[in-house]
């Protein structure tokens, strides 16, 4: 009676005639068009009313019945009435019919392909199984097509959070109806209102604000387009039409590595994770891959069996350190010193790649010793230049000591990115040059950046580096040597090194290691920084869908928050002065704009969707006390009641990730795949696109009734016309077709159609939405936003445009730029990467470091409140403490403790962690505010502080290289230089 007979009975239902070796997938469908909409107003919805719990209990009951009535009555060992005696039940058992019990549970009615809209960079395609009209479970679709058979299989992508998103669909947390706050913000007291009431109230308010010219007091906060670009665009599109403010997120979350725009003139560009396997040597530098990149960890783990050496740089013996070949453990905040020490070893021992440095970097450029500025062609009468802007033609000395213009300098380029010029050299510049030059200012001593760098590096001798970092001198020098000597070396840089105040210096120091060794622009090399999803593959389609007017009021969220939370002076005098100067010079914008009479209104209105701004805001105490009261109306659009929803005035119920159409992408891979609805939106919920579309309709209705006239935008050459805002919302601005973008799925198609990556201009090939439903599709090309092409059979690696094709880097010098001659950088002694102590006593004078890394059990705050996952933790927030730190304070594992500083005290459970270094209170972050007793959360202990070097424009007057652009350049919301202490609950503060 072999059951395997059944297994072998493969039916010929294979609908997919692809040649892949893949029989694992059930048939996945996408219902045509939108799912039926729930009935408006009264909320009388037919389905979705059975809770998941009762649905499953139903199963339980069935199971009990399935095992027969005997269980209730016949429980005596010896009463085996009518039952045959079983001899030896090994291999011979007569009563196997009962096995159908579990077989019947392995059953479903339909399967849909979807994924999760969370900021994890996972972008994992899942099959969602539906049974009895309810979402039952999910399993990775496991059908990413392979593009390189020598690499590990890309399947399956997913993690434990994605594996239980189903629980959210019918969870207690789920928001099922529009709600209006009736208690205080945060109290959790609500009145159920109709959609019409909710939209009317919001629309009336918005029309008032715009009519009064306060459209720039309306903010929209939504992060990470790549995780669901249609949902991102839904509200952004409306805010854009209103003349409102779109918030940055990548810098605000301190995910942006400022060193990349500074040195590489690029927001960030990474290899897809499959490329890890191509490396001979990988340093995971503060990147806790095994916790924060679960779907990609395979490439790191498998590389260990492929001859790759894996080094981990972590302050604790982390969950990734355990699977490395060597672990290096610097003191917290000393990564920069370690990197510069390694750089010194490489340079000192002549292990650097000289050809790379000469052609690809600013190392041969000459620097004036009198001003610290680059020597420019405009300053040297002997240099004849054809360039339009000789003041940005920089100079090198060739092998004869003759001054030569550096090709590709900004002065001969048309803006930041100009591929009509080349950096290829027709002479051999000297790295080590020093001479006197006759300039318009007289004789000036100049020397190369290389020589300046060597002087800087000379400070990082082994003794100093060991003293500063605690890492053994032989160890770090050997690692540096090994890194320099292999063919292909790579650094994966993580959040752990990006949250420090001096993160720009840390980035630049670590970047220097790949530059010095020429590890850029080839497979298996580079510096990958996968923190947040800064951009999206289908860039153009997303951009024009989100911002149809093309005139975007973008704001650096860190500065906006800081400004309106009233903590501009929360720092030393010089820094406070520079922050104001940056605003005054328009280097960084703050909205609402200053009015002609010198006044500046407060922000009045905030829409938050796809994010949890209030919970995740650093400077949380100031945000709650100062910023939040300024907002007259906070609207949260959400499927679950998170902390921001709790602190909102109106909450609108949105479709879950299994109830809508959208797209998903990430820079961890080069595929695009969809969300499709497995079930209808629960209760009265609607998709984000539907909600903002209906709000646009309501605004148009109210404005038309009131006879509102169009107004001129204060800043841009356009009119804001509320009487056509719905028509504008649903019009395809590219084709001019009216009503074309009414539905989510049409918006998905719009993005794919208008993006180079999915619809290349020079090819007939095109990816449609239906294609992605069939299986994830590898993108066809990369558009302007990327620094390499996507090539068949190869993992994507960045920087080929510059390293292989010799196009100018998008920096002022046209090269990888380690020397920044901006006045502020010179003043602060940061023209080159250098190690500096962070700010002291941030949060007060306390003995412990406060560290809030990304954890295993949540994607930011999503899943923090998941019952299933909390059962696999301790059910409440915990802080990891070194056992001796705990013992000194009389704390035992499981005790309730208070983590405190001058700003706040936060109560949670102590967990002893022997793999921690002494002196760190480590709280894996993003617990929701309502998980702590008292009115505090993990961010209450964190002040905000901004670094002046991240508020600049460069060049100062024209800003082609560094200029505010949302998520490209702006101050990062750092949070690691915070001091705290810990005591048992009820203890006193010394």
């Amino acid at each position, binding site marked *: 009676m072999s059951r395997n007979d059944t297994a072998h009975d493969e039916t010929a239902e294979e609908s997919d005639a692809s040649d892949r070796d893949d029989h694992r997938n059930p048939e996945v469908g996408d219902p045509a068009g939108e799912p039926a909409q729930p009935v408006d107003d009264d909320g009388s919805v037919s389905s979705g009313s059975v809770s998941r719990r009762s649905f499953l209990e139903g199963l339980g009951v069935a199971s*009990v019945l*399935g095992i027969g009535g005997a269980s209730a009555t016949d429980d005596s*060992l010896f009463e085996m009435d009518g039952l045959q005696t079983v001899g030896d*039940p090994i291999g011979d058992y007569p009563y196997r019919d009962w096995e159908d019990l579990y077989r019947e549970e392995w059953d479903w009615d339909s399967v849909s392909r979807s994924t999760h809209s969370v900021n994890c960079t996972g972008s994992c395609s899942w099959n969602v199984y539906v049974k009895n009209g309810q979402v039952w479970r999910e399993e990775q679709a496991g059908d990413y097509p392979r593009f390189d058979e020598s690499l590990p*299989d890309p399947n399956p992508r997913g993690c434990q959070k994605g594996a239980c998103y189903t629980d959210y669909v019918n969870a207690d947390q789920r928001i099922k109806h529009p709600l209006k706050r009736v208690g205080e913000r945060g109290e959790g007291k609500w009145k159920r209102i109709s959609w019409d009431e909710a939209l009317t109230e919001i629309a009336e308010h918005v029309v008032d604000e715009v009519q009064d010219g306060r459209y720039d007091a309306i903010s929209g906060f939504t992060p990470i387009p790549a995780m669901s670009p249609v949902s991102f665009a839904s509200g952004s599109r409306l805010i854009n039409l209103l003349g409102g403010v779109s918030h940055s997120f990548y810098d605000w979350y301190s995910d942006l590595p400022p060193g990349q725009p500074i040195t590489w003139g690029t927001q960030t560009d990474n290899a897809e994770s499959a490329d890890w396997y191509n490396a001979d040597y990988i340093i995971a530098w503060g990147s806790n891959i095994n916790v924060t990149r679960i779907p990609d960890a*395979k490439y790191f783990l498998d590389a260990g069996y492929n*001859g790759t050496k894996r080094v981990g740089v972590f302050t604790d013996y982390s969950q990734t350190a355990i699977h490395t070949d060597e672990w290096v453990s610097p003191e917290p905040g000393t990564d920069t010193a370690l990197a510069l020490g390694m750089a010194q070893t490489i340079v000192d021992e002549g292990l650097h790649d000289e050809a790379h440095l000469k052609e690809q970097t600013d190392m041969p450029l000459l620097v004036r010793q009198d001003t610290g500025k680059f020597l420019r062609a405009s300053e040297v009468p002997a240099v004849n230049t054809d360039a339009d802007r000789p003041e940005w033609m920089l100079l090198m000395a060739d092998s004869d000591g003759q001054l030569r213009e550096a090709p590709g300098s900004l002065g001969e380029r048309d803006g930041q990115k100009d591929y009509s010029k080349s950096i290829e050299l027709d002479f051999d510049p000297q790295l080590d040059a020093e001479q006197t030059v006759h300039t318009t200012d007289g004789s000036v001593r100049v020397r190369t950046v290389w020589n300046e760098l060597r002087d800087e590096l000379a400070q990082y001798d082994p003794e100093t580096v060991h003293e500063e970092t605690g890492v053994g001198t032989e160890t770090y020098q050997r690692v540096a040597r090994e890194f320099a000597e292999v063919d292909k070396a790579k650094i994966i840089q993580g959040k752990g090194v990006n949250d420090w105040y001096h993160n720009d210096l840390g980035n630049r120091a670590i970047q220097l290691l790949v530059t010095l060794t020429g590890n850029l622009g080839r497979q298996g090399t580079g510096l990958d920084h996968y923190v947040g999803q800064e951009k999206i593959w289908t860039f153009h389609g997303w951009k024009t869908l989100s911002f149809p007017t093309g005139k975007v009021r973008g704001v650096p969220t860190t500065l906006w928050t800081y400004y309106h939370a009233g903590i501009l002076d929360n720092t030393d005098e010089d820094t406070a002065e520079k922050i104001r100067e940056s605003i005054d010079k328009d280097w960084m914008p703050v909205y609402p704009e200053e009015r002609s009479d010198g006044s500046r209104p407060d922000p009045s209105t905030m829409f938050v969707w796809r994010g949890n701004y209030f919970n995740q805001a650093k400077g949380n105490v100031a945000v709650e006390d100062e910023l939040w009261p300024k907002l007259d109306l906070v609207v949260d659009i959400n499927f679950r009641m998170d902390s921001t929803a709790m602190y909102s005035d109106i909450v609108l119920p949105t479709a879950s990730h299994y109830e809508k159409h959208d797209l998903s992408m990430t820079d961890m891979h080069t595929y695009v795949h969809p969300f499709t609805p497995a079930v209808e939106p629960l209760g009265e919920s609607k998709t984000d696109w539907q909600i903002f579309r209906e709000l646009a309709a309501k605004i148009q209705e109210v404005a038309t009734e009131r006879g509102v006239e169009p107004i001129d935008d204060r800043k841009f050459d356009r009119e804001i016309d509320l009487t056509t805002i719905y028509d504008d919302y649903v019009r395809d601005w590219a084709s001019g077709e009216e009503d074309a973008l009414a539905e989510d799925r049409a918006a998905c198609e719009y993005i794919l159609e208008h993006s180079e990556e999915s619809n290349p201009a020079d090819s007939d090939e095109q990816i449609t939405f239906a294609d992605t439903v069939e299986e994830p599709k590898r993108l066809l090309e990369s558009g302007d936003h990327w620094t390499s092409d996507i090539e068949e059979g190869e993992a994507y690696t960045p920087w080929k445009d510059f390293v292989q094709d010799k196009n100018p880097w998008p920096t002022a010098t046209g090269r990888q730029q380690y020397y920044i001659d901006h006045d502020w950088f010179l003043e602060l002694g940061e023209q080159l990467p250098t190690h500096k102590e962070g700010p002291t006593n941030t949060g007060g004078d306390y003995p412990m470091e406060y560290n809030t890394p990304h954890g295993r059990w949540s994607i930011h705050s999503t899943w923090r409140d998941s019952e299933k996952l909390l059962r696999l933790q301790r059910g409440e927030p915990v802080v990891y403490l070194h056992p001796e730190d705990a013992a000194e304070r009389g704390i035992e594992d499981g005790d309730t403790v208070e983590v405190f500083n001058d700003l706040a005290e936060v109560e949670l459970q102590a967990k002893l*962690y022997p793999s921690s270094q002494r002196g760190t209170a480590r709280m894996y972050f993003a617990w929701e505010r309502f998980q702590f007793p008292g009115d505090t959360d993990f961010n209450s202990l964190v002040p905000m502080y901004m670094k002046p070097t991240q508020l600049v424009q460069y060049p100062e007057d024209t800003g082609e290289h560094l200029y505010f652009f949302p998520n490209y350049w702006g101050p990062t919301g750092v949070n690691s230089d915070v001091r705290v202490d810990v005591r048992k609950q009820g203890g006193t503060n010394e």
Partner: protein
Amino acid sequence: MSTESDGNGESVDLAEGVDHQVAMVMDLNKCIGCQTCTVACKSLWTEGGGRDYMYWNNVETKPGEGYPRDWENSGGGWKSADHSERQPGEIPDQEDYGEAWEFNHKEIMYDGSDQPLRPNSDPEWGPNWDEDQGAGEYPNSYYFYLPRICNHCTHPSCVEACPRKAIYKREEDGIVLIDQERCRGYRYCVEGCPYKKVYYNATQKTSEKCIFCYPRLEGEGPEGETFAPACAEECPPQLRLVGFLDDEQGPIHKLVEEYEVALPLHPEYQTQPNVYYIPPFAPPQHSEDGETTGIDRIPRQYLEELFGERVHDALDTIEREREKVDRGGESELLDMLTDTNPARKYRMEVFDDG
């Protein structure tokens, strides 16, 4: 190394009466403790109906007390290799498993409660309570993750323990099942299993355990397709190989019988598990002045407690093969542990035609 093989698994010790034996190899060097396997199993098999506290698949941090707490000291198994007498065992208390906590979401979010979100009890233990804790002290602390399912043993002591003979081993694949119609919930099997991988369901009054996802193996779904167990298929690093121990062409046979790098957990329990582990290696210890030393981080003695004496040879073999690959050589062994060949990692239909 390997015994002579004649091509039909005769070198493999199968239970008498069993034609083939399903088996699983788990590579602990790829386990990242993400618990996707745990959640996959739970969502599929153990929600509601009295099963909520059960984790047929769990992942525990080692060294650690595990799930249920201190299971390694709870007895069970056989007294000796001749399987003639069972080692007495204990039935864990409910607190040692932990309860399936309920939470107060609704009260906080919609009813204006000023309490924090908390379990409905004041728990002191749970299925993953000592996650990441391990042993030793910074910078030379150590820990790793150990995923566990029912071992579907060749000499299952749970079968022997059951007075109703309601537990059996399937003829065609050696999967060990508890007959849910015949079982009366006496819990002798819970006591008798040294791995504590049988769970009592107080609602249904039966004992339940991992079924190796036999409906998936059999292709019992609506579309008739076969799947490996959910814990294996859903594992992000794909650290589990699934197949038959007696499939001599398969990686499991090679890893267990030829290379002898895949070892049973606690072989001294004498049940002869059919789940095997590639033992963990770790970066070496640090000296006081922060230098990398040549000293093993995970004490060999500890690994020996878990995997028996053969762990030394297994680790030496892996190290040797890794050095070979580092020098540019090829390694069949490491190739089998790398996820480059999806067709190879789950070989479940090899005997269908037999």
